[in-house]
């Protein structure tokens, strides 16, 4: 009996005009949306490879530890093609150095900021809007429709339990919805496999499965909403109008209003400017402390002085052709600088966290209100499975921070802070520059340097000097061997982690399903079928 009912429901739904239209619209949009998303992914992937290669090349040319500041990259997430989430919207590069604890990823914003009015349609949006609507359209007249036509009375006059009838209606609808969903997924996977430059691992397939299941639970929920409404109303037209309001609220109004409210009404107390000022204050304080430790000997021009002097971002420095005595004093200074740098990095990071905290609070308010809408929960779930949620961005930054700690440990293990190699690639038996002129370091003082040296400089010597620098730049002995440096690795999230992380969302959706079904069941038991 059940199977007859189930088949009848399926056939009836499959033959409707609404089903045909929704399916066609879904498939067209899915194809277009996924195709464009995969092109976007390809271009981001290409950029990622180019940048990664650039940074890798840069690492092969590091002379001293102070300029060893690897840049790490977040690879674009392949499943962002199905659910874009935050993936393309946030930065992807983080510079690892001792002076800064990673707090945000940078990177040029791509695309057209003026196009933001036009929202991209990814699979998740299409399922949320179009298939969510289809689910309601399939069931809004499930019972009230049959009642209006008088068939409900007829059906129940057979020895058929009400539970079976309800279950048949529900499962029939679900089976029908499965069709466009499955077709979308097949199209999506085909484009992923053949158009996007993606190699999907078994774990990726599991995650795609997770996205699919989330869609399915959402659609089942929408079906049950339709069934419930069709039980509590007595006319199909009223039932339909109610369903439309539910859909409008769930899909468009609640999430949008919640975000607008959180964004514009939840004032951010600490402004960016105030934070920047506080950080500038800290940096000033740090630099003052560092300067205090600077030995006057280091600033005095003399025969001990390293003539070649290059400095870069984050206090990177490269000195050459100085005297060992100079380097020994410099070692003390630079190790102190590094130590202060590391401790102030933590302080600065705390200030940044203070700024982030109102942002987190606003996000919690957004979530708190939006949880009323299953469409919002679906988005969260799909993003989690796709690895494109804001949590994944946080996870990337957490990885970067862990990596920075590993990196500092590595530097410590190399004794980098308290060795010459922090600032110079000169060998231990370094010859000071004055020896080019046949002088000894102690002979040259800042007062006499002009008479002793400048007078002797001629173009031929300058040329020789340039040549020496060029040679030393290429000298393999002067380049750091970084083969044992820990490397950064970041990948898509693990399925088990995702499930643990989104247990609440999943549980909530399932619970809503169960509750709705139970309520529908109880109400239907007492339903007057006449």
């Amino acid at each position, binding site marked *: 009996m059940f199977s007859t009912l189930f088949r009848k429901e399926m056939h009836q739904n499959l033959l409707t005009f609404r089903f045909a239209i929704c399916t066609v619209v879904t498939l067209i949009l899915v194809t277009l949306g996924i195709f464009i998303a995969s092109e976007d992914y390809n271009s981001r992937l290409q950029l990622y490879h180019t940048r990664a290669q650039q940074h890798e090349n840069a690492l092969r040319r590091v002379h001293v530890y102070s300029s060893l500041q690897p840049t790490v990259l977040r690879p674009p997430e392949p499943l962002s093609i199905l659910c874009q989430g935050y993936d393309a919207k946030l930065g992807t590069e983080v510079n690892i150095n001792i002076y800064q604890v990673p707090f945000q990823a940078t990177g040029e914003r791509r695309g057209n900021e003026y196009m*933001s009015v*036009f929202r991209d349609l990814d699979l998740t949006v299409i399922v949320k809007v179009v298939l969510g609507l289809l689910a309601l359209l399939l069931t809004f007249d499930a019972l009230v429709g049959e009642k209006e036509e008088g068939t409900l009375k007829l059906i129940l006059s057979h020895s058929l339990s009400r539970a079976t009838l309800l279950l048949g209606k529900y499962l029939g609808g679900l089976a029908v919805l499965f069709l466009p969903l499955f077709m979308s997924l097949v199209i999506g996977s085909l484009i992923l496999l053949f158009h996007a430059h993606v190699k999907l691992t078994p774990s990726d397939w599991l995650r795609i499965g997770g996205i699919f299941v989330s869609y399915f639970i959402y659609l089942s929920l929408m079906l049950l909403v339709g069934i419930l409404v069709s039980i509590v109303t007595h006319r199909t037209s009223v039932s339909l109008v109610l369903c439309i309001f539910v859909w409008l609220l769930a899909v468009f109004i609640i999430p*949008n209003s919640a975000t607008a409210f959180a964004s514009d009404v939840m004032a951010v107390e600490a402004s960016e400017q105030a934070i920047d000022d506080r950080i500038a204050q800290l940096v000033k304080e740090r630099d003052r402390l560092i300067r205090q430790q600077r030995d006057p000997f280091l600033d005095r021009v003399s025969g001990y002085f390293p003539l070649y002097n290059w400095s870069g971002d984050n206090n990177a420095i490269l000195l050459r052709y100085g005297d060992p005595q100079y380097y020994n004093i410099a070692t003390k200074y630079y190790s102190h600088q590094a130590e202060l740098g590391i401790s102030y990095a933590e302080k600065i990071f705390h200030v940044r966290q203070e700024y982030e905290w109102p942002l987190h609070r606003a996000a919690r308010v957004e979530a708190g209100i939006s949880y009323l809408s299953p469409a919002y929960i679906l988005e969260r779930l799909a993003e989690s499975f796709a690895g494109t949620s804001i949590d994944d961005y946080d996870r990337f930054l957490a990885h970067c921070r862990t990596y920075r700690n590993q990196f500092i440990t590595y530097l410590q293990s190399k004794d980098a802070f308290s060795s010459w190699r922090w600032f110079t690639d000169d060998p231990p038996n370094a010859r000071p520059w004055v020896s080019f002129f046949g002088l000894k370091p102690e002979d040259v003082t800042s007062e006499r340097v002009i008479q002793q040296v400048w007078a002797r400089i001629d173009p031929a010597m300058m040329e020789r000097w340039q040549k020496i620098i060029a040679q030393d730049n290429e000298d393999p002995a002067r380049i750091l061997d970084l083969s044992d440096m820990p490397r950064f690795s970041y990948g898509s999230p693990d399925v088990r982690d995702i499930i643990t992380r989104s247990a609440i969302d999943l549980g909530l959706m399932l619970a809503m399903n169960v509750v709705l079904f139970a309520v529908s069941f109880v109400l239907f038991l007492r339903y007057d079928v006449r």
Partner: protein
Amino acid sequence: MVKLIFLRELLDQLTSLRFYLSLLLVIFLMGLCGIIHSVKYRTEVQEYQASLARYEQHLSGRTIGALMTVHHLALKPPWKLAFLADGGQTLVPNAYAQALDADWTPYFYRTHSPNFRLRPFEAIDWTFIVRVVVSLVAFILAHDALCGEKQRGTLRLTMSYSIPRWNVLVGKFLAVWTCSVVPFVVGALLSLTILTTYGGIELSGEDLKKVTACGLLTLLASALFVWLGLLVSALMHRTTTSLVVLLLVWVGFGVVIPGASGMLAHKLKPIPTPEEVGRRMQAIADEIMREYKGRGSGWRGRRWGRADNYAWERISAEAQNKRYARQEMARREFLRQKFAQVDFARTLSSISPTSLFQCTNEHLVGSGLDRDRQFVERAWAFRGVLEHYFRTVDQMDPESPHIFFFGEYMSDRKVDARSIPRFRFQEISLVEGLGEALWGLLILGLEMIITAVAAYVAFLGYDVR
């Protein structure tokens, strides 16, 4: 007779559940719109003043030379009328920083970045409410105006009297239109009250005219939606089918067409990537260096260049200014391409009346892309004003080498910060807006007439049994 039918239909609608649901929803959203924009405008004004104050600090007590490397600020002021049509203003740059020294690249940016942890959203403004809610409400109220009566059998009865069909149609149209507009008007008044009392926003005469224009456009758009609803109602025989069809039409108008147009615009009118722009900039710089045979970047300093009256420096300045001008042209071209992409997407999406309404409304009140364009063009033009000013004050100093606009080779005299010209932004007036919106208005009006005629024809051939 029209009046009788109007009154009866009005009574029917006013006592229905869906009318109250719509009223509730629209009033809630309009109230929210009022609150959000009150708070937002207040915050924006504070941020605007803070940014200006910082800029003023940079200006005071500087020499003419030092002012060449100061990033002069062109700031888009907060807009009182953002509640009518936000037009994505909160996501696009609101400031332009340009230094006159050719070595400094000017850039557009946002002074206060939005919370990146939140999802992208559409601002709750009148346009959103009309586009999403009022249009759907019009469909819901109109869907059973004809086929509903047929189902109930009352249409046959009505038609058995000697009433011309157009009387029935017009009466019904007026009633449904009134009912779909009432929530909007009530809500709009509510949001205006909140904005003026809680938000303390003072609306000038011109502002009120824009508000009225926006309201009138909404009346036109909702008339179009009601006629569409009546048309479908006159084509279908069952109320649910009629509503399902209308719902699908609505999804097509509101979601499918705009979404697809955005994606198609990305594909059909692509913009250069940042890498391509970077390469173009480099190519221009290389070209200039070749043109000047490597003599375009010799700077010896104020003291050493005096001997030959800065012969090198004059050439370098000429070369660098020329490079800047060419690069700037390329940058502007790039930004115009971005605008063109948006224009293209908008034109495509105008197939949908809801998008057309949004677009026309933004034109009318001077929001969205029009306001951005206005800002960008004015910010660019601001450079000319600054150049003229600094040229004039520099000429007054006989000791300056007058090598524009390289601070080291310009006057060391201080200028009174108050005399430096400031950026002025001029909102688009309603008359200009009307000019921009003319086509949209005409098309919307035409669409309405066509739908009305189609509804009439469909109803003429309607089998009332």
